[in-house]
């Protein structure tokens, strides 16, 4: 099992979610997971911010051309100074999605080449889609199902995701 796989938490969302598997990762693992998904033929559908009681969540939705399936990569960032490494060097299409998420939730994407607001004219404080502390939902309510760490646990899709990782993508700072 690769080092990255041993750090991933997996969960199976309910059928009604339209998501087949959820991967939970720490923010510094996002570029590595994205690189692995690109090599395995996944494309990035969108990046969705979500203001939860435990922190600011980032949901990266990935899909495939060859079969009907969807993976969601969940990252939880602290409310104070939320930061996440960019994946624009892996999926260049992520650049605008990250800038939009930055506009709406105030999340900083470190290493990004362009951090100007995309849809808003200026940065707003508080960010327009953030919620007041008393109005945030708990992640335990939205994602109540059990997670497991590391291996595929017999799930074929998870097997595909965690197996044969190949060369892990370099972190942004390693790029020339």
């Amino acid at each position: 099992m690769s080092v990255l796989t041993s750090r991933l938490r997996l969960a199976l969302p309910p059928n009604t979610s339209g998501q087949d598997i959820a991967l939970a990762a720490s923010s510094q693992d996002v570029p590595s997971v994205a690189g692995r998904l690109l090599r395995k033929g996944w494309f990035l559908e969108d990046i969705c911010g979500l203001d939860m009681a435990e922190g600011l969540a980032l949901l990266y939705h990935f899909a495939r051309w060859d079969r009907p399936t969807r993976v969601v990569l969940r990252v939880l960032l602290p409310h104070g100074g939320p930061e996440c490494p960019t994946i624009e060097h892996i999926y260049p299409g992520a650049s605008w999605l990250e800038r939009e998420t930055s506009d709406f939730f105030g999340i900083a994407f470190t290493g990004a080449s362009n951090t100007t607001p995309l849809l808003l004219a200026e940065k707003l404080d508080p960010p327009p889609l953030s919620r007041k502390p008393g109005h945030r939902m708990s992640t335990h309510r939205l994602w109540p199902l059990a997670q497991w760490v590391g291996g595929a646990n017999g799930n074929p899709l998870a097997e595909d995701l965690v197996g044969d990782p190949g060369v892990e993508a370099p972190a942004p700072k390693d790029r020339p």
Partner: protein
Amino acid sequence: MNFIPAANPCSGLEGDFYAQRFALEAHEDSLILNMGPQHPSTHGVLRVILEMDGEYILRCEPVLGYIHRMHEAMGQNRAYVQYFANMGRVDYLHALAWNWAWAGAVERLAGIEVPARAQFIRVICTELNRINSHLLWWGAYLLDLGAVTPIMYAFEDRERIMDILQEPTGSRLTYSSFRFGGVVADISSDFVRRARALIARMPERLAMYHELVTGNAILRGRLEDVGVVDQAMARRYGATGPVLRGSGVAYDVRRAEPYGVYDQFDFAIPVQDAGDSMARYQVRMDEIETSLAIIGQALDGLPEGHFMNPDAPRGKWTPPVGESYFAVEGARGKIGIYLASDGSDTPYRVKLRSPSLSNLSLFPELAKGTLLSDAVAILGSLDLVIPEIDR
């Protein structure tokens, strides 16, 4: 709420904040040019800043947000059913696809059944709307390229389709006629008769369109080998719809992730391998025929029954706690809606995946090194709807 002005490291340079920032990386003796937001080929409100070396583009950067209306914030402060009105305005050209995405996301979350007749009505209306979208694209694209007449023909057909769609939807452009569990109105025998007349009429019209335009040497000279998108590029940018199918990938959400009753119809997915602007043109023209075939089959198989689930929720209502993602095939590509519910009568979060945004995001890479006039041909071939990008 406090407004914090964006940092300005470019004081002393000409232009607004975006132009100044763009100019920081400019080469000596190059020209910075603004294309849009008031430019006919940017269809209203897209602005592209270009760095030019003579007639050639060295680099460019689209500037978005001129028609941003914060649809996602509006999703968090109104009842579920009220949000249909927004869906008619995200993409005004294929409003019913967005209607379906919203209805689908909520129906999937709450487990609401949709009667078979309602499913068929949805298919017929959405495909009519798709044809209308492609017709407008066809006319407007050729207008971008300097041909003034075709849009007149396109609008003659569009008017007929809008007349047909007006009956079940109550509108002519910004449709918001889907509801959770069905649609707002049934279709009549007169609707069926007029839709069949359209199916009988369109092959002759499409043949005329092709004779008038598609084989034209000037058009082919302007589109062939211009703006070639390869499959790796499409994957990295998340391109979908005709842009992706013009690069040889037969990916269509109606087939790849069937929703509604699309799995009951026999239809081809038009694909072209060249990846250039002409390929995207050809894919859309072929898709009009595909939509006509689907509508014909749906009219033939239209079942009796309810156009609305009698038990479906109406007015203010609370779905269960949870999340759902629902994708549909819009005229421009994959539309996706992520919905999170906290069990209250307003959504906790609505995220709209706009196909035009991903399709446009590859433009800076595509336009690099091309002639400015080719950039117009490339932009038009992406079939952008700016309100869908800005949301």
